[in-house]
């Protein structure tokens, strides 16, 4: 990248915290949000990261047809951390046609389709109150957000499983570099649904306790829900802290649909490309937010790949012990955690890890601690062998 896009606003909701301030407080207090599932998921022996208050969120009346858990989660996040105001101001600055909306999700509003199938009529047809295009269809998420802000730039939904929302940053950087957009709303939303929970249960990957990524006694993953949004702009703020998307790398494992490449080939390629595009040496990275799902195989492959590309000194942690694995929202969610930590000068601990895996070579952080950060890498690796690494940097303190 010849010019790095600026991060000018961000927001999130997840099980650990509502809004940026809520999540920062949870990170400082080592307080995660994983609980036993309730309702139609209560039979599953696992923990989930469920966001409080989603049921009582209402969408603007002109967008009522978009009503579903996924878009309610989106609306909840948009209402926090001054994000909506910042988007409106960017629209006034640049014009609606110069702002894009690129968002990631794995299942969009599929919970609405699950309900519709459970209420099929005798002739097999689905109930009239189910609107596929505005709920379950992947485009629903990016459509909802562009209509919510009356934006008229390019808009699409990226769905590459657990790397989905990380990749929105890459495409946004390209749109801005190409001169097609002045600002892009990126991020992602995924919400709890039977498809994901029972699918991961069928793969025997769910943890019966709050997940413990990188721990030698880890028992699997916990699914969470989250919504997160970041505003990337061509121009940075004239005062205050300047944070940029400094680099990115994307790769494919070409190995298996649901297992990582045993030598972490794709993970290594993505991290190396991110360093190369950022023009940074490994020892310049201050902290790495790992994908770290809590599945032994995934954690070990990533640990070895990080050690191979970046060495064993850089503080690393997975933050999925706070939020659960938020799937298509994970990339954006962990980008927001990287941004929070860059701004606050904080290295988040690997919540729930009591004793690191014997095979681990990385510098795994047990407890959250304060330290000024300059360059932070985040990793996300998904089903289908789809990998994305991002690097965010504090431009105001760079040498």
């Amino acid at each position, binding site marked *: 990248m010849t010019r790095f896009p600026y991060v000018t606003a961000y927001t999130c909701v997840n099980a650990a915290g509502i809004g940026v301030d809520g999540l920062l407080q949870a990170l400082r207090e080592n307080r995660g949000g994983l609980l036993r599932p309730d309702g139609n998921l209560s039979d599953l022996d696992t923990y989930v990261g469920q966001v409080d208050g989603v049921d009582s969120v209402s969408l603007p009346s002109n967008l009522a047809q978009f009503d579903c858990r996924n878009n309610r989660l989106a609306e909840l996040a948009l209402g926090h951390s001054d994000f909506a105001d910042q988007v409106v101001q960017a629209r006034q600055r640049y014009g609606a046609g110069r702002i894009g909306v690129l968002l990631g999700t794995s299942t969009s509003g599929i919970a609405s389709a*699950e309900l519709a199938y459970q209420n*099929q009529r005798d002739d097999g047809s689905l109930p009239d109150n189910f609107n596929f295009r505005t709920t379950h269809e992947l485009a629903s998420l990016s459509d909802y957000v562009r209509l919510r802000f009356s934006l008229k730039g390019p808009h699409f939904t990226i769905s590459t499983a657990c790397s989905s929302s990380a990749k929105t940053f890459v*495409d946004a950087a390209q749109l801005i570099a190409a001169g*097609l957009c002045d600002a892009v709303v990126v991020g992602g939303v995924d919400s709890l649904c039977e498809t994901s929970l029972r699918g991961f249960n*069928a793969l025997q990957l769910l943890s019966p306790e709050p997940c413990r990524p990188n721990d030698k006694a880890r028992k699997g993953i916990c699914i969470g829900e989250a919504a997160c949004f970041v505003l990337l702009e061509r121009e940075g703020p004239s005062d205050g802290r300047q944070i940029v998307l400094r680099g990115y790398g994307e*790769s*494919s494992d070409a190995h298996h649909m*649901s297992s990582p490449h045993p030598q972490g080939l794709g993970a290594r*390629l993505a991290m190396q490309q991110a360093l190369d595009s950022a023009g940074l040496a490994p020892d310049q990275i201050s902290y790495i937010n790992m994908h770290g799902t809590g599945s032994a195989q995934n954690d070990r492959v990533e640990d070895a790949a990080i050690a191979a590309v970046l060495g064993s000194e850089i503080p690393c942690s997975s933050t999925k012990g706070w939020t659960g694995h938020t799937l298509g929202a994970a990339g954006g969610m962990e980008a927001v955690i990287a941004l929070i930590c860059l701004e606050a000068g904080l290295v988040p601990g690997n919540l729930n890890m009591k004793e690191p895996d014997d095979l681990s070579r990385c510098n795994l952080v047990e407890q959250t601690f304060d330290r000024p950060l300059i360059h932070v890498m985040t990793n996300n690796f998904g089903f*289908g062998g789809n990998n994305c690494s991002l690097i965010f940097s504090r431009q105001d303190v760079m040498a």
Partner: protein
Amino acid sequence: MKALVSGIAVLGAGLESWEETKAILSGTKEWQDQPLALPKAVVLPPNERRRASPLVRLALSVAQSACKAAGKSGATLDCVFASAIGDGQVAHAILSALSKPEKAVSPTQFHNSVHNAMAGYWSIGVGNHAASTSLAAGDFTFGSGLLKALLTVSQENRSVILVAVDYPFPEPLNAMRPIGAPFGVAMVLDPISHSGQGPIINVTASDETAATPLHHMDLAPLWQACPPAKALSLLASLIKPGRIVIEAGADYFLNVDICP
């Protein structure tokens, strides 16, 4: 943003290849409404090939044909897979399973339910370790995929394969989101600095407020209903060079100029 179109493949009902589609679009051959004959996904190992869904077969078939036309293996191309509704057969199977008391989701169906399943199978089939994205944008899915592909070529200076495919849902979802008929298109796009045969397209932001319609009576319904079939107006303009306008969003249009 410019790119060299070095390989094209088309597959749909009565559209067995790009050569046949070209003849139909240029009026030298009449379109016949024949059921789509899906080839085997020969790029996959035999056990995966047997289980591949119609959408995966459609995607892998056009991807492989476009690579062949471009004289490339596909192993090093960046990948953009664009599909509005994704794998409807898999979605229906999971939703049906969840509507029964046992709620038994098949683990294979589950990992095949990700929107990037076809991209994953393609990468495994051809040994591709490059960047790969899978996107959806409703009726604007083809234009969005084209935009992303051109961003890769122009901003990263890398060759890319764009694969845009959709296959109708089974009922009852088909009644909710009908797309008419299955259709797949793939294009290999190279930076114009690369040597290669093929037309050069120049894609720019447009001030227009409507897409160029497809002037072909028999294929217009497909163009209208099936999101990837919006490519047909671009394909038609490759035969008769000129400017066309493609939808890449509800309020966002691209000019595509064909440089002869």
